[in-house]
């Protein structure tokens, strides 16, 4: 597993927590390989084990078992070497509300050993690059959500890490600030930085990540490029609802030769078909012949949510936003 070209390689990485109700397995043995210079995403609902994995890889939490190489160093034997090479931006950031953004950047640079002049220069550089000029000398508690997030990212980048961990980088941001963060992350990749991020936003995983792993209940259930993952679902998705019983409609369509897979999702029936254009008329005829009244029908290309749904039986959208 000690692959020299990989930015991260893990083997059977596991973490359990002891709680009042026994042992909880937060991460249940994860094998992972992240390549240099890519944006790798960890997609999954809350409590899936995304943050726990990230915190283990960033030296914040010792694994219960397993091994990992991070930025070419052994995570368990040399966490202090790993720390020099990685940046980490946690879910809540990490800047103090009562100091200025500039002083946080200078302090962070000094923690990595920069002398005062170099630290000030580096802070100035990041303030310009991340468009923080207007707020750099104000206290952090006055920042907007987007400014705050960009500062957090600047703090993680002070020492020019080769690998940056971002835990839910856009949670709680408005669409404009989110697009801005995506831009920054993409720019990092252009500069050669490897980015490992977690998200529960399908759009984010789809738009931003070169490759991703879908994680649920502490296990990776699927991995690949967003396109690969979507192709695995294959074909198109038809979602429809009828007046009357969902179960009856499901029983009716399931044995049809043009239906690859059918499932009920609340009031809706979801079909995976090879070609939506021909399947839709077939479906209409079939329901009509059985006297079932069609209420709604939609046809879509598979999304990452379909991938998630197929792997876990649940929709990621229904798991709700992060707390």
């Amino acid at each position, binding site marked *: 597993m000690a692959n020299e070209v990989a930015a991260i390689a893990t083997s059977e990485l596991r973490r359990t927590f002891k709680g009042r109700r026994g042992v909880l397995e937060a991460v249940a043995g994860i094998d992972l390989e992240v390549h240099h210079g890519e944006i790798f995403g960890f997609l999954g609902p809350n409590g899936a084990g995304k943050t726990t994995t990230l915190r283990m890889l*960033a030296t914040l939490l010792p694994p219960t078992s397993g091994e990992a190489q991070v930025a070419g160093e052994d995570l368990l034997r040399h966490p202090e070497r790993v*720390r020099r090479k*990685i940046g980490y931006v*946690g879910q809540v950031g990490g800047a103090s509300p009562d*100091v200025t953004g500039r002083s946080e950047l200078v302090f962070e640079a000094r923690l*990595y050993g920069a002398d005062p002049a170099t630290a000030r220069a580096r802070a100035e550089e990041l303030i310009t690059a991340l468009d923080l000029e207007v707020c750099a000398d104000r206290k952090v508690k006055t920042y907007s959500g987007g400014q705050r997030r960009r500062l957090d990212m600047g703090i993680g980048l002070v020492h020019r890490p080769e690998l940056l961990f971002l835990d839910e980088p856009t949670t709680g941001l408005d669409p404009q600030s989110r697009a801005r963060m995506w831009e920054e992350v993409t720019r990092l990749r252009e500069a050669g930085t490897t980015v490992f991020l977690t998200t529960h936003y399908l759009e984010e995983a789809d738009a931003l990540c070169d490759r991703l792993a879908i994680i649920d209940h502490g296990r990776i259930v699927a991995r690949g490029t967003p396109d690969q993952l979507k192709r695995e679902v294959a074909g198109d998705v038809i979602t429809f609802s009828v007046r009357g019983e969902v179960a009856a409609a499901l029983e009716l369509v399931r044995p049809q030769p043009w239906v690859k897979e059918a499932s009920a999702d609340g009031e809706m029936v979801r079909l995976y078909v090879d070609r939506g254009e021909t399947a839709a008329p077939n479906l209409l005829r079939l329901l009509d012949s059985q006297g079932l009244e069609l209420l709604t029908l939609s046809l879509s290309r598979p999304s990452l949510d379909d991938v998630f749904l197929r792997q876990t039986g649940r929709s990621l959208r229904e798991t709700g936003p992060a707390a």
Partner: protein
Amino acid sequence: MKLAADTWLVFQRYFSIFIRNPAWVVVGIVQPALYLLLFAPLLKSVAGLSGFPPGGAYNVFVPGLLVQLGLFGASGVGFNLIAELREGVVERLRVTPVSRLALLLGKALRDTLTILIQSAILIALAFPFGLKLQPLGLVVVLGLVGLIGLLFASISYWVALVLRDENSFAPVIFTAALPLLLLSGVLLPMSLAPSWLQTLSTINPLSHAVTAARALFLGHVATADVAQGVAIVAVLAVLAVAGAARAFGRAIA
């Protein structure tokens, strides 16, 4: 050397945050100053009783007041660490190569300095009441109070890292601090206590610190009382610093 440099960096950061709000120095000294003004005069009439230590009411009371300042001034510092845990500051610092011991020491030494500034103000306030103090005694007393501050600041951070919640932190800390105060003879000398209470107070490290501080105010610097008090507090401070620094390394935010 890296430890010293890291500690200095962390200390500077927290001191600069603190110095921007110097009101806290004053707030922290209001309580001991009230004791000095509204409680110490009561001792004047008790000072004549047999068993009351020598030196007069203020020379007996002010050393205890300084120990109390060290205890209560430092015990609450964990509150702001809990806030920092929530803000992600601790996690952010732990992911840097900075030494975990420096994370603790930098903060705790800032708190220690605060207590020393307050102690100096308190001593100055007490002089008009007839307090007497030799320069050497003053230096050693400040060293002792500084160690007490370091000890309880470290314990406070340690408890904060373990409990990570204000609602459980406050009762734990203040419930633990009160018997330490009562059994130290700060308010009234333990020599006036019934013998079972005196026995109980000898297991309290702070009562030895109070005894040492009173000896120092009388100018008795090179005495067994002073050596014992300083040694007990110093050993405990080292243990508390080590324990709290370890907790910093393990903190799960």
